[in-house]
């Protein structure tokens, strides 16, 4: 239950603090999901540079691998940051509905058990939604930035084009992801 806030102060309840803290923690499965998706999205531009810019993959293998890994790390970072921001907001938004849903399901159980169950479900739903939306949003933004920079840099040497497009897109993505707040 949300306590009344004293005027002029924006204190968070203990529950909100626990929820915020738990949002920071990313499970191994979620982390693996983030890095896997980030790798796939970072590898997609390689197709453009291989077939359109005619960069032979064998000749530029080390170059491609290096920038793909850099991009993977930064995109995964962006996923984590946005997921943290969204998870808390979604949890607060779903709290009432899930509480009611759990109350109806476990009407015969005691209040503590119902609250625990509701809290677990709320975290799970928030985690799932925040993860999915973070991946979708960051993928869309990353691909948009890649296409934009690919077009702008088309007169440059293909190596320069790839390096700047991939790294700039990933850095911008990581930068934009740090802009959100939990409130």
């Amino acid at each position, binding site marked *: 239950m949300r306590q009344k806030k004293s005027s002029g102060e924006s204190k968070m309840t203990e529950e909100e603090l626990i929820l915020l803290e738990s949002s920071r923690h990313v499970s191994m499965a979620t982390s693996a999901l983030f890095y896997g998706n980030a790798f796939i999205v970072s590898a997609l531009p390689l*197709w453009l540079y291989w077939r359109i810019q005619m960069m032979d993959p064998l000749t530029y293998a080390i170059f491609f691998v290096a920038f793909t890994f850099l991009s993977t790390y930064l995109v995964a970072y962006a996923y984590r940051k946005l997921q943290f921001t969204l998870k808390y907001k979604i949890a607060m938004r779903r709290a009432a509905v899930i509480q009611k849903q759990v109350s109806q399901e476990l009407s015969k159980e005691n209040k503590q058990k119902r609250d625990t169950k509701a809290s677990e479900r709320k975290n799970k739903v928030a985690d799932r939604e925040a993860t999915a939306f973070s991946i979708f949003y960051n993928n869309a933004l990353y*691909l948009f930035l890649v296409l934009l920079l690919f077009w702008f840099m088309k007169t440059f040497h293909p190596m320069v084009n790839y390096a700047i497009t991939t790294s700039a897109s990933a850095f911008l993505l990581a930068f934009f992801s740090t802009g959100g707040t939990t409130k």
Partner: protein
Amino acid sequence: SIFNPLVTTFMTRYCILCHSEQRVTMLKAVLIFTLAVIIFQLPVSQATAHLLASKTILNEYAVDGKDLTVQYTIYNVGTSVAENIEMVDDSFSPHEFEIVHGLLNVSWDRLPNNANVTHTVILRPLSPGLYNMSWAKLTYDTGVDGIVQIGYTSAPGYYRIVTYPEFSRKHSSHITEWIAFFLMSTPTLLLPFFLWYTSHSKYEKLKSKKA
């Protein structure tokens, strides 16, 4: 007989260098000699063939490994038939160009006046780089006392033979590649969106029902 006194009078009265009769005589001789040279240099009205030839590269871009079309056009602008016309083009080294179709050494029996003939050769560059497309040599009988005229076609000049990847990068539409890219990108967007939307719409519906 009329000419002599006139020239003498003119030279005596108006020639500032003419102080003596000897000089007048000498200058008269020079003038007559010059006139004779001019008269004998005038074109003689004798029928003769005169060929003009051009050598053109029809391609806008010369690409390594791709066909290069060379067109030769010969015009007879003379007043007689040109015979035994032979054109030899040694400017394309066999190490650097491969003949796909046509001949670089061609001959024609005759070309009437005011007529023209076109010859095309298709070559294939074997290596990229800057290449000087030089002239081809032309020999023909002019029809005047067995004179064999040697001439040259125009020279297209320096052409840069680009590599196929460079050409493709700049000029190919790459429609297939773009379609493949968008097909590969679609799951990375649709799948997470679908997962999010399923959960989001379910709980939003429950929320609106509760309200």
